[in-house]
């Protein structure tokens, strides 16, 4: 995990909701030898459009952004500087939880606001959404108990409202 590594770029692309668009976008990264770290696609408020959030490793993204714009189905492409966007990810994490350790595991989870969504005989599955760094911290904390399984949604990002100057990161209060 290296959520704050500067070689990671967060790019959102507003694209037409048409077959093949995902393939066109991902091929563009592959063609230039860039590895896609995570990719999330979903609908927007406009039913004709989808938003893709791509987290990719690479030295610079200017050319790839221009090339993405060249795709006929691409409406808008934005690279988000660190902190310029609200970035979120959701994680489902199954940890070993022998009955005698459940208390401490639930305590730790409570600090992060992780929800227990499935409890078995010897495991608990948590759901946690938040900034990538929070997810990484929680994962680190749970490691000693034994991670059984893990799935992440891939990062989603939305540019911050440029007009909101005060209290622009209210979500930090829970962290």
């Amino acid at each position: 995990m290296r959520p704050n590594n500067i070689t990671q770029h967060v790019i959102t692309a507003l694209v037409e909701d048409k077959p093949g668009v995902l393939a066109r976008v991902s091929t563009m990264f592959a063609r230039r030898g860039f590895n896609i770290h995570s990719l999330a696609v979903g609908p927007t408020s406009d039913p004709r459009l989808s938003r893709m959030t791509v987290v990719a490793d690479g030295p610079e993204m200017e050319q790839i952004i221009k090339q993405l714009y060249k795709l006929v189905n691409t409406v808008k492409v934005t690279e988000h500087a660190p902190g310029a966007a609200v970035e979120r990810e959701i994680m489902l994490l199954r940890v070993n939880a022998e009955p005698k350790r459940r208390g401490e595991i639930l305590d730790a989870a409570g600090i992060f606001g992780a929800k227990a969504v499935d409890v078995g005989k010897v495991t608990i599955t948590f759901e946690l959404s938040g900034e990538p760094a929070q997810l990484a911290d929680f994962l680190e904390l749970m490691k000693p108990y034994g991670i059984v399984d893990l799935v992440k949604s891939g990062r989603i990002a939305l540019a911050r409202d440029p007009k909101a100057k005060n209290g622009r990161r209210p979500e930090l209060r829970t962290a």
Partner: protein
Amino acid sequence: MSETLTGAQALIRALEHEGVDIVFGMPGGAILPVYDPLLDSPIRHVLVRHEQGAGHMASGYAHATGRVGVAMVTSGPAATNLITPLQDAFMDSIPVVAITGQVAQTNIGLDAFQEAHTWGISAPVTKHNYLITDVEDIPDVIREAFHLAATGRPGPVLVDIPKDLFVETMAWHRPGEINLPGYKPSVKGHPKQVQAAVDMIHAANRPVLYAGGGIIRANAADRLRRFAEVANLPTVTTLMGRGAIPDSHPLALGMPGMHGTYTATTAMQKSDLLVTIGARFDDRVTGKVDAFAPGAKVIHVDVDPAEISKVRQADIPIVGDAGAVLEQLIFAMEHFLDTKPAPERKDWFDTIHNWQEKYPLAYDQDPDGPIQQQYVIQELHRITGGDAIVVAGVGQHQMWTSQYWGFERPNTWINSGGLGTMGYAIPAAVGAKAGAPDQLVVAFDGDGSFQMTMQELVTAAAEGINIKIMVLNNSWLGMVKQWQKLFYNERYSATDLSGGNPDFVMLAEAMGCAGLRAEKPDEVAPVLEKALAINDRPVVVEFKCDPDAMVFPMVPAGGSNDDLVLGPEDLA
């Protein structure tokens, strides 16, 4: 009451609506239903002998006419045979629409007979591509495909249509308005940038106008010439931009780059400002990028924003159509010169004229020696007065044609620039002649290049498309041999064609063409006269050429344009 049509009929109707007059293609299983209504259409079908030919013919047609060329083939191997011409057209920004049949939708993904994932294979080699899944979409998709192929930065568009849609019926409707929210090519340049460009041009001491194929594609050659004259700019034309300004024009310096003229290459190298329009700093132009035109600022006009600062950082980027931006530049420059004197730049022009005098293109035709390829090109130019559409394959002959044929008009030079597709000449010439039947269409080809697509001479003969192919036969893969001579210690690995070359005259005759041959320099002019006099079938003329001739000037690959080699004497 709208008419009920099958998908096949709707496709033909949609093509007619686009003004298509010729389709280059070959039928097969999946496209078969379309070939039936084609019989009732005024659209002419040219039956090719290999689908690659159909793609290059569509490209040659587009080059010669400025209109979208159309290729139509079946699924599977036919579609994959189109990939090379699509990539070729993509790299040279040639407007082509390819229509491919696909297996029925119930069979897609089942490894059905002649199934290929055409959409996936063609996506990286096209400007855009479609797989139609609803018969009702046919008119709108065809409208979009032609719009995309022809506008902005032109390019190839592929439309894949499953066989079952051809036999389904639909209520014909004229295509609706184009709705592509992600596709809005810029036309006019930003006025502030245009003004800044004019200021920078006026202040420059050693400017060069660097004109590329974008000028030709934008039909802007007249405005390029006018701008060069108004701003008094020496002008180089890239391989794709030949003809953008007449080669006989006093401001024209010829082609720059790896095999460019000394003057064009060196003027760019020494310039303090490159006024770049519709060109893309291709590696064959720049040589080693780090050493390219080190003292030059760059104005870069291109309709494709992704080209700007891709290779060389632009000081003044202008995104827009070459013709529209040239109009703005001419207007702004004329306005500017109302109040300020035009810079004379005498030193710069003296330097340039000195280079032109000292380092012209040169070769030596020994009357008793073998035929020099350049001599054939110059003789044909002399005899025809240069009034022809000229096509080339890829290799030495292509470079010599670009160097030695004086191009006076746009759309008269057709070649494969970006991809360097050997075998381009014959099918591209067929396409050009089909689109411009009243013009003389000649192709210079190499013996290697010729053998890659020669079966399209059968197409030409069968269709009465009377092109003239000049085979400059040196019995080698000449350009590769040249590199082996210069960089591989004269170790000629797999480049000697002499043992296996066919008898080109017999071959031509066997394919329904006239076959002629010249073996000595004094036979060149008479055989050319004879070739020009034959107009009832295609003509192939074989010239037995110097096997050791090399293309000069030359910048060795990866080298700086400062280290240009003028001839073999420089290589010692």
